[in-house]
Structure formats: structure tokens, C-alpha cells
């Protein structure tokens, strides 16, 4: 619920709540632009998050805003403000037809017809603009204090929504819902005519034709049950009115009036010729002998209609055997019905009679409404205070806003600030001038527009362009034109050199008052980063440390080191704690661990022990000698533990086997055998 005094769209002031519907709250409001009272319908919060629905609400409301008719509650504006969707409408002071019927119990035939003509005329105006109401019901028909009947809530009343609703909220509508609406089919003008017929039924009988515990029961009755003629209850109902109501409430849309024009015509005829037999009841030829001729015009329209669901429709047609006995018997008595062509003289008489009748009815309605004044939703007093009383406009110039407001309200005049501007003569907040001259006589409640001073006009200067200058000269340039340099900010910049101005606020070229403060942003140069200590970190951690400092990993090289373990940074290209440009790549060296030198194992075969040891030593290896008796010449190498040509870590010990000294007798042959054995040949 909105608070009083809130403005919507900077124009409409909420004054008080006057009602609440299923989807919206209605407020009395004031349009401060056109200075008139209005009704403002504000969409309930439930629907504010339903974008599909909101689009529909706005587009339908816009369509309705294009509709201006005396029998329609006119829509002036639609809008959205601070998340609230609203519709601005004509403020009609009166009561709803529902309240009126409740008050009176039931209406007379004349009253019913008079109200119905106006209602149908309002609906017709909408149909002419291709707007289907979809929710015609006495709650949406307002009888103004002047006795005018106005239809309200066009289009938006039953706008489709996905927002879940509890059925109790729509009980008011389901009593008037057409069978095709209950079925969920596409609805057209004839659906409104059905609902109008139900409304007429309620006026004349004082109750709706179908009632029940739940929306479902009621909806089903509209689909399945035939309406019992109001004549059963109201025996004195004019025959023509009974027929009109029955024709409007036919289950099959094509059996109703096809448009409001035809309905209004019959209603008018009914006023002058209440018992006339001019209503063209559509009837199917059933078992009876009655032959009914369908007017060719109507036939043509039916044939023209393009049905998407032709088959479905046929089914439906068969399901509802609506030929009630009432009708057939009546028709038998009356004989075939034909269009009642009125001769020109009769037309003239009818016209006069109708005017008289309408006048009588209008007076009656006003009388009734007057009696029902206690039911008025809007208390009289505000809107109709715009009497002929004229008041003299006070002189407001030189007053403060508060003083002006008080002076105006004393005279029942409205205060509105139409503008604020600088003034050398008047201080801030003082009225400079008024748009309605002082002493002029105006109607009470008129709005007086005033212009309020914003204080002395200041000399303005253009902020000079100091970007790129060094701080000191920029400050001089700014002060030279009468600006004050406020504390400057420092910022890193990749493009502006250190100590130069990057920008000013307000920026160059801005028109500001003399003496205004200007803030300069001065470059710190390219942003610097501190190089972290990488030595001693694992390579992965080094990259992370660089990234954290805003630096990049540079070339990574590997070196042997006796001091650092493998994988640890042993050296970095840029010294720790040095300031460098952000993003600079820092090289570092990762330890491969202690260096290992590989040497080739020499061939020691046919060497003496000493020569072999020397050869190993020369190669960087050590020797370990064992002795064995062999056919090999004593003192010579028999075998070595590492194969000649293979690589070993420098300093590795190689085992060698050296032949022991033997008997000389065995020497020669032994030697030969030994050689044989040594080479492993047979």
C-alpha cells in the first residue's frame, strides 16, 4: 500500500486509497500537471516480478488509453515509477452497479434497459477499437453521481498471467464468464455480450443466473446448464427484454448478438415497445415444426468466420442441447420471428419516446444514487470543490517557499514550483516570480506556479586542459583561471610520465563556477614492483612469488651446485628488493645439484699392473687390484670390472685382476692355455 503524498512519475500525487481489486490497488490522486483529480490504479506486488504479465499490462493499458468515450472510464496514462506499475484514469464519483443492485434488490425494467444501453455503448466503443473487455461484470460498471454509466477496467482485467492465484479471488468474475472463456478458447466481442447479458439478468432479477460453492461449480454451469428465463422469477418482465437477455446469454457465441450495435438497437426498441416481438432468436431446427429463418446477414457472418478448431466446435455443438422447452413453446405461440423493420414515422416517434424515457431513467438513477450516497467510495468534498468561488492571487515574490505555500493555502490555492533558477536579486529559496499575476482572480483550488531562486548566479569558467603538464605548472594554470586545486591524487600510469597530470576532475572543458575545486590526478609513473628473494625457493614457489609481486618468471637456467639441492633456486637475475616495472621478467638459476663428471674407462688388457693403475689414474678413476693365478703372464692384467669404453663417474674405483707369478715350466704352455681360456675360445 502506498503512502499518501507519494508522487508517481513526478506528476501524480497519491491522496488516499479508494479500493482494492485482485491485481491492483486503486487510489485517488492528483495530477499536478493538469491540476485535476484522477484515479490511479497500482499493480499489486505479486505481479511486479512477472515480466510477461507486466508487458501485457502496459500494452493493454496503452490500448485502453486510446479509448475515449462518455460511457467508459477513460484511461489517461500508464507508467512505471520506482518499480511500481500504474495506470491513471478518470476519477468517477459514484457507485458500482453491483453496489447499486445490492442496494435496490433488483432494478426495474426501464432502469435495466437504460443502464444496459449505456453499458453496451461503452463496450461498443471499445470493440470498435478491437479491445475486448473480458471481464464485464457489475463490479466494473460505475454509475456516476450524474447518472452516467461507465464501463471500467478494459483489457487489463483478465490479462493472462502465470502468477498463481487462489480461486476465491476470481469468484466475482466467474459468475459472468462466458462458456468459451471457461473453456479457455479464444474470446471475441461476443464473449463480452454474454457477460453483459448476465449483468442484465442480475439487474432484473437481483441475482446471478448461476451460483455455487466454488468457482469450478459456477464455471461448469456456464458450460453445461441453460439459463432459466428471468420471466420465471419476474413475471412482469417485458417480453422483449427477456428475449434480449436470453439471446445475449446463448452458449454458442454465434447465437448471440454478433455485435453491440445490434444489441443496442434491440434495447432501444425495447424501451418504446417493451412487449414487441422483434428480437431475432437464433434457433436450430429441432424436432418441432417451427421453421426459423436465420437472417442472411447473420448467416453470412457465421460462414465468414474462420474456425481453427472446426471439429471441436462441432462436438461442442452436439453436447449442449440448449433447445429449452420454454423457448420452443414461446416461439410456437409467437410464430416465426422476423426482423422488425420500423417504418420511418415509427422511428421518429420512437426517438422522441426514447429521449423521454432516457430522461426519466436518468433522473431516477440520480435519485437512487443520491439516496445511496452512503455507499460512495469517494467522499464528496474534494473534487467538486471547484466551485465558482474566485479568489485573488497573493503576491508571492520575495517570499520563502514556506511563506508562499502558507499564503496560497490560506486562499485555497495550490503551490507548484515550475522551475528553479539563479538570481542576483533573490537569495536561494526565495520566490523570484509567479506565473499567475498577483491580484488576479482565479477559481479556488487553482494551482499557482512559481519560480524559486537557486541563489546568486556564479561566474563560470572552463576548466583548462592540463593533462600531460607537470604538477606545478598545472596548478598554476588552474589557479590562473580562478579555480582552486584540491589535494591531488597519485596514480600509476603506463602512458603518462611520472609527475605529469593524468586527468582532472571536473575534466578539461567543463563549465564550473569560479572558485570551484579541481582535483588533479598525477602520475606515479609506471607501477613498480619489488623483486622478491627467490634464492632458496623451489622453482615452482619462485614463479608464485614473482606472480604475487606482479612480476613474471624470466629465463630459467640450470646449473650444478654443491651448495643447493637440485630444483632449488640458487641465483636470481635481478637482486631482491629492487624496484622494477610491474610485469618485468626476472631470470633465475635453478640448481641441478652437485656436478658429476663422467669419464671413459680405458682398456687395461695387456697392461702391467702399474701401467693399468696409471691409466686409470689418468682417466680420473681409481684402481683396486686383486691377484689370481692364471696362464696370463704374471704381473699383467687379466680382467677389469668396468668394460673398456664405458662411462663412469669420475673417481669411481675400478677393480682389476692381475696374474700371479707361476712356475716357469708351466709358463710357455700355461701362457698358451691362459690365452685360450682368456679369450674363451675352444
Amino acid at each position, binding site marked *: 500500500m502506498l503512502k499518501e503524498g507519494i508522487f508517481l512519475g513526478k506528476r501524480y500525487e497519491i491522496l488516499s486509497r479508494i479500493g482494492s481489486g485482485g491485481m491492483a490497488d486503486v487510489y485517488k490522486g492528483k495530477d499536478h500537471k493538469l491540476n485535476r483529480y484522477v484515479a490511479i490504479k497500482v499493480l499489486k506486488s505479486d505481479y511486479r516480478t512477472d515480466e510477461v504479465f507486466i508487458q501485457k499490462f502496459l500494452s493493454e493499458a496503452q490500448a485502453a488509453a486510446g479509448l475515449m468515450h462518455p460511457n467508459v472510464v477513460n484511461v489517461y496514462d500508464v507508467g512505471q515509477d520506482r518499480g511500481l506499475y500504474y495506470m491513471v484514469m478518470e476519477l468517477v464519483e459514484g457507485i458500482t452497479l453491483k453496489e447499486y443492485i445490492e442496494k435496490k434488490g433488483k432494478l426495474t425494467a426501464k432502469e435495466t434497459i437504460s443502464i444496459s444501453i449505456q453499458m453496451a455503448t461503452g463496450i461498443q466503443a471499445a470493440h470498435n477499437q478491437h479491445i475486448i473487455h473480458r471481464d464485464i461484470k457489475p463490479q466494473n460498471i460505475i454509475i456516476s453521481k450524474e447518472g452516467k454509466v461507465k464501463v471500467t477496467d478494459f483489457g487489463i482485467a483478465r490479462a493472462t498471467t502465470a502468477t498463481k492465484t487462489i*480461486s476465491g479471488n476470481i469468484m466475482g468474475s466467474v459468475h459472468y464468464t462466458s462458456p468459451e472463456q471457461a473453456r479457455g478458447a479464444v474470446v471475441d466481442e461476443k464473449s463480452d455480450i454474454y457477460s453483459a447479458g448476465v449483468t442484465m439478468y442480475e439487474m432484473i432479477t437481483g441475482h446471478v443466473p448461476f451460483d455455487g460453492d466454488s468457482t469450478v461449480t459456477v464455471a461448469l454451469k456456464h458450460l453445461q446448464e441453460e439459463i432459466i428465463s428471468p420471466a420465471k422469477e419476474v413475471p412482469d418482465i417485458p417480453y422483449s427484454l427477456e428475449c434480449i437477455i436470453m439471446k445475449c446469454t446463448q452458449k454458442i457465441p454465434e447465437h448471440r448478438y454478433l455485435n453491440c450495435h445490434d444489441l443496442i438497437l434491440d434495447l432501444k426498441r425495447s424501451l418504446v415497445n417493451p412487449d414487441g416481438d422483434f428480437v431475432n432468436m437464433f434457433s436450430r431446427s429441432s424436432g418441432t415444426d417451427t421453421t426459423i429463418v436465420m437472417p442472411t446477414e447473420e448467416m453470412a457472418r457465421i460462414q465468414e468466420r474462420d474456425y481453427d478448431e472446426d471439429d471441436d466446435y462441432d462436438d461442442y455443438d452436439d453436447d449442449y442441447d440448449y433447445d429449452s422447452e420454454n423457448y420452443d413453446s414461446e416461439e410456437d405461440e409467437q410464430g416465426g420471428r422476423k426482423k422488425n423493420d420500423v417504418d420511418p414515422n415509427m422511428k421518429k416517434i420512437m426517438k422522441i419516446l426514447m429521449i423521454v424515457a432516457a430522461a426519466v431513467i436518468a433522473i431516477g438513477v440520480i435519485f437512487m444514487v443520491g439516496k445511496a450516497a452512503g455507499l460512495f467510495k469517494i467522499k464528496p468534498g474534494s473534487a467538486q470543490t471547484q466551485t465558482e468561488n474566485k479568489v485573488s492571487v497573493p503576491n508571492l515574490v520575495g517570499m520563502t517557499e514556506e511563506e508562499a505555500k502558507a499564503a496560497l493555502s490560506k486562499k485555497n490555492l495550490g503551490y507548484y514550483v515550475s522551475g528553479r533558477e539563479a538570481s542576483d536579486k533573490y537569495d536561494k529559496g526565495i520566490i523570484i516570480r509567479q506565473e499567475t499575476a498577483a491580484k488576479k482572480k482565479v477559481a479556488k483550488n487553482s494551482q499557482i506556479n512559481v519560480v524559486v531562486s537557486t541563489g546568486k548566479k556564479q561566474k563560470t569558467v572552463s576548466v583548462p586542459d592540463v593533462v600531460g603538464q607537470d604538477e606545478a605548472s598545472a596548478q598554476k594554470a588552474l589557479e590562473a583561471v580562478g579555480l582552486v586545486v584540491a589535494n591531488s591524487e597519485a596514480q600509476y600510469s603506463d602512458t603518462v610520465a611520472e609527475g605529469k597530470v593524468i586527468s582532472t576532475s571536473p575534466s578539461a572543458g567543463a563549465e564550473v563556477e569560479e572558485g570551484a575545486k579541481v582535483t588533479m590526478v598525477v602520475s606515479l609513473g609506471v607501477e613498480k614492483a619489488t623483486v622478491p628473494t627467490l634464492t632458496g625457493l623451489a622453482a615452482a614457489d619462485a614463479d608464485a612469488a614473482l606472480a604475487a609481486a606482479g612480476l613474471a618468471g624470466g629465463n630459467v637456467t640450470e646449473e650444478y651446485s654443491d651448495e643447493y639441492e637440485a630444483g632449488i633456486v640458487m641465483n636470481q637475475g635481478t637482486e631482491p628488493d629492487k624496484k622494477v616495472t610491474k610485469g618485468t621478467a626476472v631470470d633465475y638459476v635453478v640448481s641441478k645439484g652437485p656436478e658429476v663428471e663422467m669419464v671413459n674407462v680405458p682398456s687395461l688388457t695387456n697392461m702391467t699392473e702399474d701401467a693399468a693403475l696409471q691409466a686409470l689414474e689418468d682417466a680420473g678413476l681409481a684402481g683396486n687390484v686383486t691377484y689370481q693365478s692364471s696362464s696370463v703372464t704374471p704381473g699383467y692384467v687379466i680382467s677389469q670390472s668396468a668394460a673398456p669404453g664405458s662411462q663412469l663417474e669420475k673417481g669411481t674405483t675400478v677393480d682389476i685382476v692381475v696374474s700371479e707369478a707361476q712356475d716357469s715350466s708351466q709358463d710357455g704352455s700355461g701362457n698358451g692355455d691362459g690365452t685360450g681360456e682368456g679369450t674363451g675360445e675352444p
Partner: protein
Amino acid sequence: MKTFSITDVGMVRQVNQDYVYTTNHPLGPLPNLFVVADGMGGHQAGDYASKYTVEVLKRELKQSRENDIEKALVLAIKTANREIIKAASKDSHLKGMGTTIVAATMVNQMMYFANVGDSRLYLINQGIVQLTKDHSLVEEMVRLGGIKPEEAKHHPDKNIITRAIGAKENVEVDFYEHRLKKGDIILMCTDGLSNMVEDDELFHIVQGGRDIVEAAESLVETAKENGGTDNIGLVLAEPFADEVSVC
């Protein structure tokens, strides 16, 4: 019992008023509980209604000394209804709030469930069957023969429900039971899913998923691809082999 619950704001709404809850731990006489609720009402009212209803339900069941599953569950739902009405009458922001509810529990190869509103419980096995009856104007008209199921499908008044938690002081709760069979999968969902995805598509997605988690995510995605005009909330439950009766 393997269960998975998921809810998504959808493609159009700004607020998620759906609320889903599952537990495999006992709550009073119930050995487990699965709930889907679809709140309604503006501002924070709708999401408050669905969440608060589930909280009251949990609290009431936990304290319940009733041994009869039906009595315990229905009583807890009725208490939640009264508390929602009470909360709505105290706070003008919550005025008019309400929620649907479908709640289920599985006990000894039997599934017991209750519903109010138009959130559904489907049984999926060789085919798909809706076991709950929607308390909506359109579905009730279909059941009473007023309109045809085809007419109901795209009926503009589909949003109108005939029962809700928070609507009337005395809410009527429908209660059902079903003997679980091998291969049964239970789908509980709000109309944000069932209005966006046709029944046979629901069936194919659930049966086509590698597991219920994948199936549930796929259901949400499909509803969103088809427009996602409302919030989507669902629970998928698959009984273990020893929780079903042998055919």
C-alpha cells in the same frame, strides 16, 4: 532410498518462490520426508510461505506422537496452514501469501503422500502416471467433464488454483498411498516444470538419465529451454531394491 532435489528460478522470474526439501532421517513417525512447495504472493511473501510451511511441517512431524502416517502428515499440513494464515494476518507484507504442497514418505515398501494445490507427484516406471490430482480450476473442470484435456493444456486460467495452504482456515488435504514396485521412480514437482515439459518428455528424460541427479538437472534445463516462465522445483526419488515389493 536415493533422492535428489533441485530448484531453479527459471528464465523470467526474479524471485524463486519454489522450495524443495528431502531428508532420509526420521521425523517423528515418518522415517523420511520429501516435499515440494510452490509459494505465491508478492515481495518476499511467496518464498516465505513455501519455506515456512516446510519448516512447520518438519517441526510438527518431529513432535508428533501420532503413529498413523496419514494422521500425522495431514495434521502437520493443517497446522502449517493455520500458521501461514496467522503469519499473514500479522504482517501486512505477507498478506495474501500461500503455497501449494506435495509431501511424501516411504515406509516398508509403501509410499504415502499428500497434496494441496497444483504441485504434482508422478510415478515413473514403464510409463508416467500423475498420482496426485491438481486442485486447479482448469483440472477440476476437466475431471468433471466440463472441458476437454486438450482445452486445459493451454487454458489462460491455468494459474488459478482452488486449494492452497494459507487460503482458508480449514484446508482439505488429499492423501494417497502407493505400493512401490521394482523400477519405480518418483517425481514430485511444481507447475514450473509440468507446464513447461510435457508428460511423455518428463518420462523420457527421467528414464534417459544416467542417474536421478543427471535426470533432475536435465529436467530443469529442458524446462528452461522451453521458456522457463516460472520457478522450477522438483524432487526425484528412487527406492533401493529392498524398499520395493517383489512382483
